[in-house]
């Protein structure tokens, strides 16, 4: 049943959000974002199957490409942060405090 796939995608997406907003570990936050992207991909493919059209597949490929680019950049940033502070705590970086 297609709806079950969509419900699973919702559950994974919400878990991804939960990871982003609760954890202070940079890696975990980053991987939660990857999880959210995967949930979106699942929804794309489910809808693609529902309508029997392959545009969803193409979009999923695009998402993967974006995820790859994001991974490359985000990891570079993580390395820089680690070099500066030696820690992985997001709360160490609070330059935007008003």
């Amino acid at each position: 049943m297609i709806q079950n796939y969509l419900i699973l995608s919702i559950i994974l997406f919400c878990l991804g959000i939960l990871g982003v907003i609760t954890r202070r570990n940079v890696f975990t936050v980053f991987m939660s974002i990857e999880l959210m992207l995967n949930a979106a991909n699942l929804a794309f493919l489910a809808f693609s199957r529902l309508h029997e059209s392959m545009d969803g597949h193409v979009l999923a490929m695009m998402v993967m490409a974006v995820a790859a680019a994001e991974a490359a950049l985000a990891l570079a940033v993580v390395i820089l942060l680690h070099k500066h502070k030696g820690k992985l705590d997001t709360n160490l970086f609070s330059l935007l405090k008003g």
Partner: protein
Amino acid sequence: MEHTSTYIGLTPLFPLLGALVLGLMHMLTCTKTRLPEKLYGVLACVGPLLSFFLALVIFYHLKGLPTEERFLSHNAFTWFAVGDLHVNMGFLADPLSSLMLLFVTFIGSLIHIYSIGYMAGDKNFGKFFAYLNLFLGSMLILVLGSGPIVMFVGWEGVGLCSYLLISFYSEDTDNVLAGNKAFIVNRIGDLGFVLGMSFLFWAIGTNGFDYLSLKVNAHNLTPAIGITVCLLLFIGACGKSAQIPLYVWLPDAMAGPTPVSALIHAATMVTAGVYMVARFSFLYTHFPLAGSVVAWIGILTALLAATFGMFQKDIKKILAYSTVSQLGYMFAAVGIAAYSAGIFHVFTHAFFKALLFLGAGSVIYALHHQQDIWQMGGLKDKMPTTYKTMVIGALALSGAPLFSGFFSKDEILFSALASGHSGIWIIGVLVAGMTAYYTFRMIFLVFHGEPRDKDLYEHAKDAPPLMTIPLIILAVGAAFAGVLNLPAIFGGSLTISHWLAPSLVEHHPHVSIWIEILAIVTSVAAFAIGITIAYKKFAHGAEEPVYTGLGKFGYNKFYVDEIYNAVFVQPYKAVGAVISKFLEPNVTDIHVKLSSWLYQKAGKAFKVFQVGYIRVYAIYMVIGLSLMSLFLSHSIN
């Protein structure tokens, strides 16, 4: 025909161009080496002289036309068009404006020449002539404008120049204050003028807003609106021509250089009000009530100013009050619908008053800016040319028989008597006597008797020819200008009155010759009495009296300035102070302050949310998402 029409547009253009060129030259060089004065002087005189030449051409062209067709018009360009209303920068030359044009450019040119001598050595020589040219250009626009709007352009232009020139010696605060006073008082008058113009437009202006169309439509005015328009326009005239209650600025305006007093505050600008009333003669004839108001205010101004004039000690102030007084005569004339008499007096007055001012200027020039007549005396041997010309001017002013002022003043008094305004006539005769008295008081004190200040007396001498030649020319005019309008009783044919007839709406009363003789005899008698008293009191030396009682009251000008100050200026300042101290900070500014205070406080309060942790910002985002979902899931049910 075509060419002559174009000349009308060019006439104001020359002085305006001159003003532009001179002003730029002065502006660009005033901080560096100054250009030679001769260059400025020549350039400054070119514009007025060209305009005078064109005025002559226009005059003779009009003269060659049949009486009923004597008007030329020229539309330079459409100034603005709103809906069906097209306001053209149009110029109109008819007998009235061509006469004004002629003597304005003539006297203007003479005074430009005189000023070259008088202003020599002044560090703002170029600026002075730029202003003077600008004034002449504005005055010509005023005179030649084909409708009230164009006239208003000139009207404001001359007001501006008057302000600039009164406060010309701007190092002295008093002069600047005098300029401000003139400007502010004129604004009050201008408000009346603008309101009058607006009413007129509202009532009958939609079918064309120039004099010719207005004249055709004038009969559509209801009496109430007509009288309102007339009185409002007269308020404008009061401001410009220094009538009660707005006359106070003119005596103070003498702070400017003397040629300015001669040109602007005696000969030309101050007569603009009279000219305007004559222009609107079709309205004032229609509503005699408004006319009588004008006439009475005029003659009362004449009386009041003459009273003040009898007690002044500053030579220029005496002349200033006499100007106010003569302007009062003119308004009395136009008020009783004797327009040609009023304009004729404008014409002769321009000559003899400009002459007197320029003569006074020579005296002041010779005495190193001493203006107090109680410090002068016996100058007739030292300054013969000035003395002779000024005596001619004084005789003309006080109405000595056969001088120009005699004919014009007599014409006014005769018209008053003939049209049944005997009250105005009686006051008029009285004022004529007073005029003779204070004019010759001045002449005797300045030129006769013993010198009171030996030191100044020794160094006094006649001015250079550049200054005396205009004096002589004007003296000839002052003596003989009356010939142009000789009444029938002296064998003339009222040439100017007939010339002006197509422009004006007036009726010449036909009365018996005895009334005319009565008028002449009384005014000659008034002149004789006035001059005799002056001769007795002042001709053989007199000391400055200490005024008491009524004299003191008159010497202090009835305390009018002080009363105005107490009644209008001080309350106005008090209101201003209250507003600036209490109303502005506590009422009008309060919301500005309140909102800035609010933003500050709000900023401080909301700062709490800016914790700086990225995770918390994500939480905010999710909160928003959550609220949005709540709202949406409600609405999609």
